């Protein structure tokens, strides 16, 4: 047995490297400035969209422009918000501003480039499109990242809605991804299958099943799919690949 040890060790090391390497995102990414969301959001009560100003208007939520930071932490002659005695992190910020360079933040919540994710649609959408049970039975203390809790947060709206996907950033000194499968399609579909009629649409359209005996079941199926809302508006189909990939 022992003579296999070096090879086994080699294998184990390689496997370890593989796992470690691929799981780098478990750990926080190194940021150019040690910015604390906890300090800004929890202690000082700044709303998410004060800085991420495009979230409700655009696909991109928007990283705050450097001028937004400088608005409070400006050069010394201005009214400056800073801890007594100054802060080396704020000096870094002013350096960037003085040089006229943007801050090269490292991206934490990154979805693949072939996905089109509109922040604005998620911020503005009416959560009544979820099935009625969605979000029930959430135990925030026991399992804050359970599907129920994410749905409950989404339903709550406001800054809570941001946390449904991004986790409780308000308490983070350093932003990390709380869901390891963040940005994966399964992770997206977890919630999207909780939309009324989504499961039925998925069954009917993405398999040949919908083709058989379609005629007689049509009305029943379509009612189950919740194609039309009360105002006659046809709700978008979340199971269609073209919704996000084009």
């Amino acid at each position, binding site marked *: 047995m022992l003579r296999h040890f070096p090879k086994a060790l080699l*294998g184990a090391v390689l496997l370890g490297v*593989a796992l470690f390497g691929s799981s780098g995102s478990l750990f926080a990414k190194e940021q150019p400035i040690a910015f604390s969301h906890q300090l800004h959001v929890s202690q000082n009560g700044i709303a998410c969209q004060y800085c991420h100003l*495009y979230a409700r208007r655009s696909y*991109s939520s928007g990283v705050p422009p450097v001028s937004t930071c400088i608005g409070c932490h400006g050069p010394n002659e201005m009214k400056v918000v800073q801890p007594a005695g100054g802060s080396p992190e704020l000096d870094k910020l002013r350096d960037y501003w003085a040089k006229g360079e943007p801050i090269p933040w490292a991206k934490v919540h990154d979805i693949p480039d072939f996905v089109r994710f509109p922040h604005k649609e998620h911020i503005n959408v009416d959560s009544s499109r979820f099935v009625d049970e969605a979000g029930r039975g959430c135990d925030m203390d026991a399992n804050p990242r359970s599907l129920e809790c994410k749905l409950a947060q989404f339903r709550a709206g406001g800054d809570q809605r941001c946390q449904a996907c991004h986790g409780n950033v308000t308490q983070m000194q350093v932003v990390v991804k709380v869901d390891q499968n963040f940005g994966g399609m399964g992770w997206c579909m977890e919630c999207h299958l909780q939309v009324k009629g989504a499961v039925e649409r998925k069954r009917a*359209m993405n398999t040949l099943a919908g*083709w058989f005996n379609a005629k007689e*079941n049509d009305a029943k199926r379509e009612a189950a799919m919740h194609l039309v809302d009360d105002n006659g508006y046809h709700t978008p189909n979340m199971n*269609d690949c073209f919704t996000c990939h084009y």
Partner: protein
Amino acid sequence: MKKGLSRRNLFKYMGVAGTTAVAAGCEQKPEKLIPLLVPPTNFEYSPSNAYQYMTTCRECEAACGMMVTVRENRAQKAEGNPLHPLNQGALCARGQASLQSLYNPDRVATPSGKSGGLSWEEGLKEFTNRLSGSEGQIVYLGRPASGTDQSFLEEWLQAVGGRKVAFDLLSPSAAVAANQLAFDSASLPELKFERAQMLVNFSSDFMETWGNQVENARRFTEMHAYAEGTRRPYVHVGPHLSLTGTKSDRWMVIKPGTEGLVALALAHEVRNKKGGFDWLESYLAAYTPDQVASAAGVDAEKIRELAEEMVQHSPSLAIGGGPIAASESAMETQVAINILNAVAGNLNETVVFSEASHQEVASHQEVVELVADLNAGKVRVLVVDDVNPVYALPPELGFAEAMSKAYVVSLASLKSETSHLANLVLPALTPYETWGDANPRDGVWSLQQPVMAPVDMFDARAREDILMTVAKSLRRTAFEGVENYRDYLQQAWQAIQTQVGNTQLFENFWIQALETGGIFRASGSTNVELSRRVTQVSPSAPSLDGLALLVSPSLLLGDGSGANKPWLQESPNPVSQIVWDSWVEIHPETAEKLGIQDRDVVEITTPQGSLTATAIHFYGVHRDAISIPIGQGHEHSGMTADGFGVNVMKLLPAKLDASGTLAFLSTSVEVKGTNAKGYTVNVDGGPRQAGRDIAAATTVAALTSGEKAKHGHKRTTETYPDRAETAGYYKPYRWGMTIDLDRCNGCSACVVACYAENNIPVVGKERVAIGREMSWLRLERYFEGYGDDIEVRIVPMLCQQCGNAGCEPVCPVYATYHNPEGLNAMIYNRCVGTRYCSNNCAYKVRRFNWFSYDFPAPLHQQLNTSMTTRDVGVMEKCNFCVPRLTAAKHQAKALGRDLRDGEVLTACQQTCPTQAITFGNLADPNSKVSQLAMREDMDHRERQYEVLPELNYKPAVTYLKKVNTREVGGHTDEANHA
């Protein structure tokens, strides 16, 4: 026991190691989030959202209104301004490709002198030094000025002491001179095609480069398109069928340069029948059809028939001009056409002059004089602004040598043969980055505004600002009180405000003008009458022995300025289907006599020079002529222009007509075959449809006799129900399209618009040659008939979004499927590149990425950010502009309603000058597309058909047949030659 690794174990460990490598490879470096330093606050801005700005297209002199889509402060798509009276939302291929002048990698980056790069300070100082003390010996050579530019240049030339020479290779100066002579109006009339009952066109390419081609095409189609059982005919009279001529109902083949004679013969006959103009009787007596017949090489009877037709269809419209008709008596030809219009009663009906002309007209005579002045040493400084005479003029004129005798300052945004020879090159900004205006017609003031900050790769300045700076440093009093050209323009617009009687605050007026793209009022009109001076004019046939050289203007490349734009090079010429090249059109009978096979390399010789190019057999050229398009054969215009094709202008003698217009038709050629086969690349599979009826046509007679279409789905018994009968599908949308082949004129604007909208890469000549072009929308061209009875059919072919597609079931990874809205979805990130789908597509509209294609900087800045760029190994195809659909659905969703008809325009539909394309929701019976496609009412269909219906692919694209006025012969003979 073996020592060491066994083979089995080796593979085991390699497996682990391999996994490691893959896993490690998967780990991405953290992407960077680069914020803005300061966000734009003076207007609504959101990343990834599109904003539209109105401006003016400056690619040619027509000055169409343009609406530019800007995302993240980068111009990404050019479209026609829907509010503009000339083009009404449409844009031509060259207008679409104007973005590639903005983002052209071959833009001039820094000021430079003969000895190398200069700073702006040095460059401007040099410019000023050269100008000072050269008063009276300065010439500004630029495009014909329009709008405020006219007075600006006048003021500038006054300040520095110089004069202006305008240059435009395809100048309408012969027509202007003829109008002055015939009507006392030195201007171009507004052509009211839509009022005409009939169009007779003498060789002009009015849907390509002649006049405002977008407006012409729209108004022509209004006249010509089949409606309510009739169509108003268009007869093409000339020695050559260019794209414009292919749209004609009948082609009267005449000898090169005899347009004027035929026009007068027609006038003679029409006057005899209609009466009036007695004073013309003796003049026209010399031009009876019988007298003209032999010179024009046409049957006198045919002329009489056409005259009779013109009398019956009154008012008609006769137009003519362009390089094909520009013989040494080009002006006389125009006068003859004027006479024809007058006697046919078209004057002030379909040919309407306005009181004032605002457009400067360039005359080649002035250029010839300039060459003489340069040679005589009378010009010390020559300022060349954005024109390329070194390339465009015949070398015999000696412009390049003459130019070397003066100090040449070139204000150029793009590299050109002229700027290559200049002593000082100052980089100029493009119209996308600068202020300006145009006054293309009485009552139309079109404003040009910068739609984005200048492209940061180039250290360029606005041309007017360069000129102003220099003038100010020469003379303190020059441009007093004006800081830059924007100020100057605003001052001029204050005058326009007074002129149009607007009493608002100027700021409001200005903002309003910026929002609408200008100020648009109805054009004034003034009645003119035919002057008796016309009898002094006598057109004559050119005496050309042997084969005449017809110089055909290029639809895509214009006068050659389009050659450095990759989209225009890669878009095939719709008639020849050739890309990235020049060619020689020769009549098959002539070719046979000379022993020249199709695709042979031939040597063309004139006394002025010779060149070699590939000959193609084409029935659309006169037997006694060959035709070569303008535009290729560049030497110093950048990487997509240099070395492709030949420059036909090198063959031309330096002859002018009476009005001082370059005589394009003034030499005969010697054609010698060589043994070599040419390497031209054409994208058509073959010239004939071989009975497939892809581009179907019907006749007016068939339509009015009650005969119904033979085409349509055959209702067959099916194994599976139609998707329309499946739960969840097509509710509420089933996207579909109709393409009216009777309206389509093959202008290729849609092809280029598709390139621009969908980030389609340009692959180059070599790869097109092996069928790897990437265009999602192509124009298929088919010939019907033979000899002079030829008919050209053009059919736009794009993904048909089949309801029962061939591509879907063969995809092993479900990358392509039928989506609930009827789109044949193509999911790039699922695609593994088997290419099964493409092989199983009957319409051959799928394109495969054989490589990762480059968008050389800064062309990548044009990429539409709402559309994915595809990488190597992925299939792609038309998706009915799904990003536009998504964006519109998001907007409708915010309003809590479904999309309404006409709220989404696909890129091809948006830019179509003739509105041949209609896109919309087939599931809504009231939508325009449903009513045109008549899918629910197959039995009452007239012109509607689907391509290859026998395959039962159930395409979502319905074509409307082209309507002919005659049956074209040669259907039975499907021999594979054109």
